[in-house]
């Protein structure tokens, strides 16, 4: 496409944001894609496999990620945040804060030598966000092997040079002389015709008092489902081996608890839509990793509503022998010696109070939208965390003309729905821009 038809800002490089950017770029629009992390990919990049097809997430996501920098129309701004937007006559002025990477993106070839050499490891390192803190990373790091852009970033908080003015090892070894200690925080102003916010979601805090009965943080072998996903992943902290935090042993019995921080008046009254299938998927994968493992899923309602979900659920029962028990545990007790967990619940379909001793408990955490601060300032966020929309029948258009939302930010949903919304929002943006400019070519 020769001439640019309009400029669009996409905030958030998750799957929804990526899809929106690609479609817009394809259709000849200039896209600024702003991502807070050093790499795009979002939550999906953290997943091992996806339900119900069990496609490996990175296999289907990475090509889409790789496409982004290939598109001439997309300007990818990673490790940056949109701190404010200002409405102007026919568009917005956007203020973007770019965090210092201390590495010259234009020079870095992503070879990873600096990472190998960086002495800020183990104790000097920091918890690896990509692995949900289950492993440590070094001061200089590349978020994950398939990162886009595949460029290293230096963490000023633990970098020995930036904290104690010693080291500079990376600089010595960098074959591309990409290290740039003089890098500083930058503020850029962008002028765009429309904005798509796709900042996704955050998990409810598993340490919330109302969830204390599950003992997350207190008991070592209680995991959140995203942590468990990392454990299942071959790129993960355990290289795809399921090992307990406490004794690094393979679990024989795993219990999944559904609706943790969802459908709960005290935390988040809504259903998080993804967790049932996510847990079934994780259960099936766990069975593949540890054929002998005994798995129980404690659920309220199995919400297998999407395409192929119900069939997948039935296979999980029939073929993989995963046990589904309808009940919501009220207490979990840890055996101080074995660090095993005894889960108490009522089997509501038998009417009996039961307890299981499990080696591992996985909490299917609920999620809430994660809007950027400026949206809160603009009063676009309801008290219950939902983002305001203009028209109940159109969940992706906010009351602000030209400001759209997509993906999980617009409500809990699974990947295909996020992708669909990504494309849909791209369409809305096109119209918003074209309706003013294009005069219809009638035939």
């Amino acid at each position: 496409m020769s001439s640019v038809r309009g400029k669009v800002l996409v905030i958030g490089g998750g799957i929804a944001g990526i899809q929106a950017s690609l479609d817009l770029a394809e259709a000849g629009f200039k896209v600024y894609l702003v991502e807070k992390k050093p790499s795009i990919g979002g939550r999906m990049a953290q997943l091992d496999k996806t339900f119900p097809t069990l496609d490996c997430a990175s296999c289907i996501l990475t090509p889409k990620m790789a496409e982004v920098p290939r598109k001439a129309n997309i300007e990818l701004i990673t490790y940056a945040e949109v701190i404010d937007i200002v409405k102007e006559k026919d568009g917005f002025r956007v203020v973007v804060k770019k965090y210092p990477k201390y590495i010259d993106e234009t020079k870095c070839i992503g070879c990873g030598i600096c990472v190998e050499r960086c002495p800020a490891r183990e104790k000097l390192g920091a918890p690896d966000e990509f692995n949900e803190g289950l492993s440590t990373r070094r001061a200089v790091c590349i978020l994950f092997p398939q990162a886009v852009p595949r460029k290293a970033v230096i963490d000023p908080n633990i970098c020995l040079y930036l904290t104690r003015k010693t080291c500079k090892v990376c600089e010595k070894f960098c074959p591309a002389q990409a290290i740039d200690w003089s890098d500083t925080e930058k503020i850029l102003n962008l002028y765009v015709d429309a904005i798509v916010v796709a900042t996704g979601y955050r998990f409810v805090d598993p340490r919330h008092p109302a969830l204390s009965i599950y003992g997350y943080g207190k008991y070592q072998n209680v995991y959140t489902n995203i942590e468990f996903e990392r454990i299942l992943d071959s790129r993960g902290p355990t290289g795809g081996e399921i090992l307990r935090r406490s004794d690094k042993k393979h679990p024989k019995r795993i219990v999944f608890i559904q609706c943790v921080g969802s459908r709960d008046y005290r935390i988040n009254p809504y259903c998080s839509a993804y967790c049932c299938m996510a847990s079934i998927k994780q259960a099936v994968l766990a069975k593949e990793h540890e054929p002998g493992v005994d798995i129980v899923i404690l659920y309220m309602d199995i919400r297998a509503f999407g395409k192929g979900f119900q069939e997948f659920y039935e296979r999980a029962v029939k073929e993989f022998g995963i046990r589904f028990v309808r009940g919501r545990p009220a207490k979990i007790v840890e055996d101080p010696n074995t660090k095993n967990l005894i889960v108490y619940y009522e089997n509501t379909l038998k009417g009996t109070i039961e307890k299981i001793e499990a080696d591992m408990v996985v909490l299917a955490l609920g999620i809430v939208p994660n809007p950027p601060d400026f949206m809160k300032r603009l009063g676009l966020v309801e008290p219950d965390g939902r983002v305001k929309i203009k028209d109940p029948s159109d969940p992706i258009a906010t009351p602000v003309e030209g400001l759209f939302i997509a993906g999980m930010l617009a409500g809990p949903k699974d990947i295909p729905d996020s992708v669909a919304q990504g494309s849909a929002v791209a369409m809305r943006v096109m119209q918003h821009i074209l309706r003013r400019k294009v005069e219809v070519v009638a035939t």
Partner: protein
Amino acid sequence: MSGEEIRIGVYVCHCGTNIAGTVDVEEVVRYASTLPNVVIARNYVFMCSEPGQQLIKEDIKKYNLNRVVVAACSPSLHELTFRNAVKEAGLNPYLFEMANIREHCSWAHPDRRKATEKAKDLIRMVVAKARELEPLEEIKIDVTKKALVIGGGVAGLRAALDLARSGFTVYLVEKRPTLGGHTARIPFIRYLGVRGDELISSIVKELVSMPNIKIYTNADVVSMEGGVGSFRVRIRVRPKYVDSKCNLCGECVKVCPVEVSNEYEYGVGTRKAIYLPYQTAYPQIYVIDPEVCTRCGECVKVCPTKAIDLDEKERYEDIEVGTVILATGYDPYEPEKGELGYGLSKKVITLFQLERLLDERGPTKGVLRIGDTEPRVIVFISCVGSMGTSPKAGSYCSRMCCSTMLSAALKIRDQLPGSYIYVIHKDIRTYGYDEELYWKALERDIRFVRYEELPEVKVSGDKIEVVVKDITIGEYISVPADLVVLVNGMAQGKYLREVLNVVRVSCGDEGFVKEAHVKLRPVDAASEGIYLAGSVTGPKSVIESIIHGSAAAARAATVLSKDHVFAEPIIAKVDEDLCSGCLVCVGMCPYNAISTKETDGRRIAFVNPVLCMGCGTCAAACPSGAMQQQGFKDKQVFAQIRAFAR
């Protein structure tokens, strides 16, 4: 190219542990490097990732490779990814071939040794084919900046609107005589106060005001050929027997002797043979149903504007478009007579019927009466026709019924505060924000009964007893019901099969169209240039369908915004020296792409590259081997076969 030495690079992907977990990648690589013409063989954790592709690009330069083989997942997933990579390295993208050692090998066979052996064989076969590969030029196709939308339901309308607004010409074809589909018959969407018919009219109103949209109702697509960028489509417009002179006076209806049940009210109302589907229906013209019309001619006599012509004939129109959006939606599951008492009593109705009864603009003006009494105890039975509850039913979940049911139940509570509502369900699947409906329902004293064994609805004269075992207490309860609502799910569209015979996209067993990729390409069909919107790919709520409509439109726009697209050149080609002009091939081609031409006095076959879809049937038939399918030439396929056993 013939003279040049063949240098093949083989790349084996670990795919994390997906392949490396069962296949001994190292050994496979060792083996591959021993194969003739293989210059370099490597393995990498994720070939499809940026660094993986980089690896190939670098090698192509370093070892000046002229063939590339990647052994990884199914080509349907990544053939394109790697072709691009190869292309970016300056090599012809069709000098690349893929071996599927994941879906066909590592995932299917747990036995490490056997899997490794098979992986070797597959790679050997593909390498053999690669040796015979030839560079191909993609076919440049000028994009017709027009779109065809099949199906005038909410998804189709939204897609049409979005494309029209973006300045593309849109043809909208609707099978039924009116636009709006099932959405137009929903009195309230998700308890949001949004009326289906208003939603539809608002879209339709804008659409008809646009110069760049052409709407065909009572029409269907009878043939389609060509591919992305330029589809040639034939549309049949069936006669309505009433033209635009109609002023909706309704005289004709008064005199029409034929009365049948009204499908637009899901059978709770009746209509004549000549009828207006419903007040807000577009177009605002009466239509005659030829199935039931007796051609008595009464209507013709009384029509004041002489708008009726019983001899009107169907007509055909040929159009050309760049993309096609398939949005033919679904049809509600129709319970069998006797299934849960359906059809045995007027007190047993479906959810779709209930919605009509609750519509202020419906046949009952929205007052819920059974006979002339208000129902006191109302029982909903969910998952009727879903989750395999009946032999005829699909095994899938219809996704939107729970929310719709609860919206309806809440409406009833508003209308009849004295009513008692029992919802007999399997799981309540009000996912996401719809959970609000569930807790509202609870707070409004709606009772929930969880069943596993199908409830029995005992109809004895005027009395109805619903006996069901609530598995959360393990007791059988019997509810004396004044009204039983069967919450029927969404089933395959009545006419989908017909459509699929024209629009060639594959359909899953559950009766819904398959996406190119169920996760990451939810609105793309397997064949390029064809997009899917709404419930045609599986049950969806109105709002999700709207989103899907826009999404499909966006995908279509990405094509329509370009001036030309490139089609895979895997089409048939004639070796003019070999062709004996027997023309066996001509009879073979389903697209009439093969014609004849004269070259130095000989009549030989000629393939029109734009029409040819590349199935290769002609090549298989050609006795002289003159007809060849590029990318699947005899020598290539045979080479692959010969390499089958060492």
